[in-house]
């Protein structure tokens, strides 16, 4: 398995058991954001189950999921694909050193009416 | 002197229709559980007289577990309901006497639940082992 630790972590965090999936595809049939995604809900579940998570972390699909929970509601096996998407999203967000910019980029973005608190928290975030 | 590893002695009363068959299924599926678990077959869990449980403790058993059909599934319609009530009384009395609750248990195991049987026995043996030997109720006169 490619990425067993990350897989187990995502499964633990989401509380979802992807082995319950019987690959019926109802989640994909249901998904209103289907056209926006490169990995569709049923693929998503399958990829997490097989530990193929790296492509998911980089995929735009993560942020295209509306979290409408239609797939959760209709899945006949109670797999809850949307919760898996959320867990992978969290994994992407929590990855360290993957910030869009560094602390050095912050001063250029400061405008006159930027609140003090925002500036402090921006430095705090991007120096980590 | 060689110190023998402490293994708790556990007496399991299993009803003939569900739990004994469940234990057989655990065997069919080769699911391990401690050899210290010894099973006594009774027709129904309601056949187990509280006296038998006391006798086992008196003779040095470290834990006693009763297994019956799930509520509503008793082969004799209502036997396991009586078991549940009787053992609730007995266990609270044993608790009062200083026999820890973890040494006694009533569990519902159906004939299809071999895995549950093995898991229950493993868990029960572990809990009893953590408590150590049963000394409080053991009748020293019975010791050879």
């Amino acid at each position: 398995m490619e990425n067993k630790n990350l897989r187990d972590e995502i499964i633990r965090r989401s509380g979802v058991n992807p082995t319950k999936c019987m690959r019926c595809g109802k989640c994909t049939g249901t998904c209103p954001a289907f056209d926006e995604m490169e990995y569709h809900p049923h693929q998503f579940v399958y990829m997490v189950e097989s530990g193929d998570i790296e492509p998911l972390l980089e995929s735009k699909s993560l942020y295209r999921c509306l979290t409408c929970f239609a797939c959760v509601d209709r899945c006949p096996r109670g797999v809850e694909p949307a919760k898996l998407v959320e867990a992978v999203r969290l994994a992407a967000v929590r990855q360290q050193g993957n910030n869009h910019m560094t602390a050095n980029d912050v001063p250029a973005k400061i405008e006159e009416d930027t609140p003090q608190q925002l500036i402090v928290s921006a430095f705090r975030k991007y120096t980590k | 002197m060689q110190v023998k590893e402490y293994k708790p002695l556990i007496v399991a009363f299993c009803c003939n229709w569900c739990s004994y068959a469940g234990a057989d299924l655990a065997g069919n599926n080769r699911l391990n559980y401690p050899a210290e678990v010894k099973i006594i077959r009774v027709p129904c869990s309601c056949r187990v007289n509280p006296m038998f449980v006391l006798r086992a403790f008196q003779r040095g058993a470290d834990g006693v577990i009763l297994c019956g059909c799930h509520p509503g599934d008793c082969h004799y319609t209502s036997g396991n309901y009586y078991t549940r009530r009787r053992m609730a009384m007995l266990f609270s009395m044993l608790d009062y006497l200083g026999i820890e609750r973890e040494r006694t248990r009533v569990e519902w195991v159906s004939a299809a639940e071999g895995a549950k049987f093995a898991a229950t026995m493993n868990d029960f043996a572990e809990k009893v082992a953590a408590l150590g030997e049963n000394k409080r109720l053991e009748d020293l006169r019975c010791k050879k």
Partner: protein
Amino acid sequence: MQRIGVFVCWCGSNIAGTVDVVAVAEALKSEPGVVFSANYQYMCSQAGQDLIKDAIKEHNLTGIVVCSCSPRMHEATFRKTAAAAGLNPYMVEIANIREQCSWVHKDMPVGTEKAIILGKAAVAKVNLNTPLVPGESPVTKRALVIGGGIAGIQTALDIADAGFEVDIVEKQPTIGGKMAQLDKTFPTLDCAACILTPKMVDVGQHEKIRIFSYSEVEAVKGFVGNFDVTIKKKARYVKEELCTGCGDCVSKCPMKKVPNEFNLGMDNRKAIYIPFAQAVPKVATIDADYCNMLKNGKCGVCAKFCQAGAIDYTQKDELIEEKYGAIVVATGYNPISMDKFDEFAYNQSKDVITSLEFERLTNAAGPTAGKLLRPSDGKHPEKIVFVQCVGSRCDACNEKGKEYCSKICCMYTAKHAMLTRDKYPDTDVTVFYIDVRTPGKNFDEFYRRAVEEFGVHYIKGMVGKVSPEGDKLIVQASDIIANKQIKIDADLVVLAAAIEPDKSARPLATMLTASMDTNDFFTEAHPKLRPVESPTAGVFLSGACQGPKDIPETVSQAGAAASKVIGLLAKDKLTGNPCVAHSNEMMCNGCSSCERVCPYGAITYEDKEFRMPDRTTLVRRIAVVNPAVCQGCGCCTVACPSGAMDLKGFANNQIIAEVDAICK
């Protein structure tokens, strides 16, 4: 003192692989009462049994212990062996050193030690065994079949053909069940009515079969061979013996707007009705919920036109008491409700139907006379979408669906798709499937024919939602293999609804003390070896009440159940289980504790005279157990405060001896 023989089985390497059988035999030799011990490769084989028989005779054994597999496996075998050698069969005890020892422990010394202890416990028990003789009870030579579908019909015919009387209780006005509603049957496509209705006529005309139609089982008492059953014959307000089934009353009845349940509410019937033309018995029934005469006394048209004078508005429910030797449960199934599956728009559109409704739509006797027309506007549908596994294999749907596979849907969907393409080649037929399950004779060939010859589109995927738009149904679904989401503007959507046991099964199981699984299917006595018997003696299972089944399987199970019933009814007397409770009258104080806990009502009280030492007599109330009714659960033995009640075969002192042996 007993003379006990110990026989240790190797079971090939099953036991001998992890248990030192020679050591076990040797160790048990020195137990009290043991005079002989032996080990052998296969004790249950003929040679092994001969070894036991010879030892019993040679050593004058009074009891034997067989250390082998589970008593659930071979206790009966070894009891027969003992009986053949002249030993009371209840002097045999089994030490389970296979399922509960060698198979669960891998270590040889550990396994051997445990096997010895289990053997000692069995020896300790045999030391206290007493010979038991089973009681006998007579057999009422008549069977009751509950449910008049194809399962009940076949069972009843088979039993009756063997010469025994059979009664069928059917809650509908006619027998026939679900099969009467079907159009064609897979995989040979015979018309269901053509093969079913002759059987229904056979039942109606068979001199050994009585049909209680429009009736239900109200109460069941007694035990195998001697059931007392109360049947409630619901008032149908028509005298069955007079009605000729001419149908004049039906054509004249002014109450026309009653949903026709036979066509699943897709058309209407009258308040007085005969469900379908081939009904057996062909007798009219008045629906009291809709009949104006019964509701407010204003009508009476049917009575006026009935030439036979069969109409009787004063009829009341009637209770009939009957005795039976055996009961067959054939209560069948129903499709589950689609109400909770909002995504398929079943309640929003008339053009979303279940497969059973589709069956009626294509049936020549159905609401459209066999023409496939949309229920909403009567137009011919050009695009049909079939959805499989609706509610089946669904374990997390907030109790919407069923966890099991309903088994028949794959095949009937293939049948529907094929027949549609055959009759209407211009129709576009798409089937959404998760898996196509066709394990049956000629089943897969049938499904492949639907795809290859009839051009049905099978798409692996599931329908996510169906939304009615105008006169179309927009079906949004996934195609997993092409990794696409597709939309189809369909005219008709057919849902292959999961099937569930009939609602009447659960209360019936309680009456019969027969066990059920969590899905309300009846459980069989053994899933492989006793598939048509319920664990309750004398109760047999036929058809889909035991699990989802297609017609061929149902018929074969019905025949099997019938053969078991015939085997039971052919006996004049039944030997009971001798392991029953008995009360020591000298110790019993008549307190009624045991009577109150007995689930079978096997314990009664009687006043008995006792001679006292001083030659006076004393009358005392004591408990008496009816051994034919007692099932031997032993609940009363624990309830008894004076210790008078004991259970034969599992006596207090025997179990205590086992406890002592284990705890030594």
